[in-house]
């Protein structure tokens, strides 16, 4: 194929094509078109923008971008002024979009609409280059985007291109440094040196267990076998998390590139991305991205002329949380029901079809390429001493500015909730925070000042898992929330092992009793015994951690539980007491 990309020169050519559409010499209008934007009416805004451009016969293009994370302000509309900064407007409607654009096209200002902020420059994280937009009188006095409370403490590595590029354009990705890492690794590095680089960076799995990625890859690299696999776990089943969706929708090439590098390092020629079916847009975007990469020879045979072959395909889930567990996911790809396997053997030695398999989370794969292009030292300088790099949290619940925030490790919940999130709606008190997916449960406000890390150090840091930070205000009930989380586990337990299948049901029934005021002190003892049994005897992580919400509720919110039991009263008035 003569169109195949082989050298960095070929990438340069594509990058200049991408730059031309990314930073055109004319007005560019960007519409936040992730699922979150669409849910708030981004299509109507886009139609209005197109119609206005047509009406004024303006020299302007309209482009769709992924989610930048500021979900509370969706739909977003950005105007990149020619030779000037990029100006963002939030909470758009068709009428507002028409008004802003009409004002700009006729008077050169933005009418009555107040911009959220402006970008004077954007960093291409993969390469470290900075694109400066220049200045324009129309953008005078608009606050810098990076100075906004929501973005001030953020550090973008995983979401480096989300909300800046058209995810359907591989050229725009390449213009921002995509595939430079893969090109470098495949053409000038040995697999062993890729492994060394990843190990040195301190990258850990972002799925929540924080296992060192370099070590995992090395196990698979050393495992015997001519056929090996790499798998991307995009079955983001934990309710309250949407960051993987956002990366898939906003910058699919980040994952593809990470997987190419990983496949080369461990020696796998086939890869799968397992995406949950609740993310139709993510699947479409990813499939398009894979097709584009195949067309350019970035996926397929002899990638970058290195002789390395790698094929990637997408598998859709079908609504099973347990398929986010890596062996459950492997079972599902093999075409079975997603019942997890016992371990050992671990997937790195016997995974997909019994072959060595590396399963990593979306965020982990997306972190790989910049480590190769900018070096492990650069990556290790971000984050905390024990856990390098960044991760994404989803701020939700009763917080003023919900959205996705990418933060370096070592930051505290307080920084996120009160710094970025702007505090709690109605300035109510914080009752609890439901962190890290359903298996951690609720933590008390006293833990807000602990640094978020992969290690638990009493009084200093805590592993907050992955996923959402769901802020609960003083009107919510932790007992009710715990019951809700247990109900989730009852639904999602696959039923393979008894401790989990029966244990989740019994715990749910006990919490139901507590919520209805029918429980007694014996219930607590039973709960404690059952938690221990489930933790010790379940086959997979779902069962061993399903008691997490109960343990945390008993440890941190004992007063509330006692009030339900002894006082037969829900302090927040959420649970309805029934006659004993």
């Amino acid at each position, binding site marked *: 194929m003569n169109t195949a990309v082989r050298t960095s020169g070929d990438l340069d050519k594509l990058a200049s094509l991408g730059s031309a559409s990314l930073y055109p010499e004319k007005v560019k209008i960007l519409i936040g078109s992730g699922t979150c934007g669409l849910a708030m009416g981004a299509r109507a805004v886009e139609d209005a923008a197109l119609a206005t451009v047509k009406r004024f016969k303006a020299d302007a293009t309209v482009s769709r971008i992924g989610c930048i994370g500021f979900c509370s302000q*969706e739909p977003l509309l950005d105007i990149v002024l020619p030779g000037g900064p990029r100006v963002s407007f939030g909470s758009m409607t068709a009428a507002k979009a028409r008004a802003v654009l009409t004002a700009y096209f006729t008077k050169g200002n933005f009418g009555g609409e107040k911009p959220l902020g402006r970008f004077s420059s954007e960093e291409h994280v993969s390469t470290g280059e900075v694109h400066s937009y220049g200045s324009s009188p129309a953008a005078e006095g608009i606050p810098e985007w990076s100075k906004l409370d929501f973005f001030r403490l953020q550090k973008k590595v995983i979401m480096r291109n989300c909300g800046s590029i058209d995810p359907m354009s591989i050229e725009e990705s390449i213009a921002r440094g995509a595939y430079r890492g893969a090109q470098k690794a495949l053409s000038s590095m040995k697999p062993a040196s890729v492994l060394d680089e990843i190990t040195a960076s301190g990258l850990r799995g972002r799925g929540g267990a924080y296992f060192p990625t370099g070590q995992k890859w090395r196990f698979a690299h050393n495992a015997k076998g001519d056929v090996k696999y790499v798998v991307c776990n995009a079955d983001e089943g934990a309710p309250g998390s949407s960051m993987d969706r956002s990366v898939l929708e906003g910058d699919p090439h980040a994952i593809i590139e990470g997987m190419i590098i990983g496949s080369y390092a461990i020696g796998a020629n086939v890869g799968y991305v397992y995406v949950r079916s609740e993310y139709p847009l993510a699947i479409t975007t990813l499939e398009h991205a894979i097709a584009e990469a195949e067309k350019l020879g970035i996926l397929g045979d002899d990638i970058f002329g290195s002789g390395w072959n790698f094929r990637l395909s997408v598998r859709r889930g079908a609504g099973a949380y347990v398929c986010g567990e890596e062996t459950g996911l492997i079972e599902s790809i093999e075409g079975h029901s997603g019942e997890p396997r016992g371990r050992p053997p671990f997937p790195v030695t016997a995974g997909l079809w019994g072959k060595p398999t590396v399963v990593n989370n979306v965020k982990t794969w997306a972190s790989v390429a910049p480590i190769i292009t900018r070096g492990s030292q650069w990556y290790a300088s971000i984050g905390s001493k024990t856990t390098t790099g960044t991760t994404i949290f989803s701020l939700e*619940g009763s917080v003023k500015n919900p959205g996705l925030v990418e933060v370096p490790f070592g930051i505290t919940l307080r920084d996120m909730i009160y710094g970025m999130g702007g505090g709690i709606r109605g300035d109510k008190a914080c009752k609890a925070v439901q962190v890290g997916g359903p298996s951690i449960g609720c933590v008390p406000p006293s833990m807000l000042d602990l640094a978020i890390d992969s290690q638990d150090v009493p009084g200093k840091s805590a592993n907050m898992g992955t996923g959402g930070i769901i802020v609960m205000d003083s009107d919510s009930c932790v007992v009710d929330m715990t019951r809700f989380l247990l109900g989730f586990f009852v639904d999602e337990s696959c039923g393979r092992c008894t401790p989990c299948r029966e244990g989740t049901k019994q715990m749910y029934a006990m919490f139901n009793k507590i919520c209805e005021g029918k429980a007694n002190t014996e219930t607590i003892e039973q709960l404690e015994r059952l938690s221990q049994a489930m933790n010790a005897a379940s086959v997979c992580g779902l069962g061993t951690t399903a008691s997490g919400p109960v343990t945390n509720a008993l440890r941190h919110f004992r007063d509330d539980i006692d009030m339900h039991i002894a006082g037969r009263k829900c302090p927040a008035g959420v649970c309805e007491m029934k006659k004993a």
Partner: protein
Amino acid sequence: MIAETTKEAVPAKKEPVGAVLVCGGGIAGIQASLDLSAAGFYVYLVEESPTIGGNMARLDKTFPTGDCATCIISPKVVACMRDLNIDVITMAEVVKLEGEAGNFRATVKTRPRFVNMDKCTGCGDCIERCPVRNIPRTVFESKPAEELDKKDEAFLTDIIARQQGDPGALMPVLEATNRVYGYLPRGIVEHAASRLSIPLASALKVASFYDKMRFEPVGRHVIQVCNGTSCHSQHSAALISLLEKKLGVSDGGTDKSGRFTLRTVRCLGLCALSPSMRIDDVSFGKVDPDDIDKILEQFS
């Protein structure tokens, strides 16, 4: 004991034989034999296949208790084989039956087994070394009940071809069928299982495992209401019960006019826009229960 009492109770008639013949050595036949033996009858248990046990030994769990099937049947098989009052005749069929109630005469034909039963330990090595064929004998072949119509046929052929012989093809085939049809039509599942050389029971096991895959036809539009943690904290329960009331259905149901199917899902990934829902492929964030009518109106 009972046999003797019977003898006394009906002295006038011809003496009944104190033996019973049971046809079929599945769980029902085994249980019947054990009960009859306990009641004092001598039992001839005739089974067509090489062993007794039937289909139950192939099942994972039994409805409705979810008990392990093998755990139920194994002790019964052992008890049946050990029972001195039960004569198990396998690889056999009843070819003739004469006489009347109380005094039958049955002729049983036994096929050759090619195995010396006195020496067999059940190790299974002979199956691997079988010079005739390497396939264990199966009695039941899953054959689709009906032919597919042209449209379904074209769909299934296309979707299977796309898997290019992937050994894990079942899951994508079922998922695509479920996505396109809204549910899994029985005929397509039967044909898919047969073409992928997967027992129908296995295909159904996979299909019933995944929450998204359903066996009932759906309405013209599918409403998915998010019941994730974030949405729960923003009162999704109220939204769900409002929709249930408006449509007159509960979770998973389809309204009378066949317009909407209502489903709750564990998280649509629109957590910052709670409460959220999706109708077909259109997502809605920060749903105000007062706007529900306006939203539903867009879908006829």
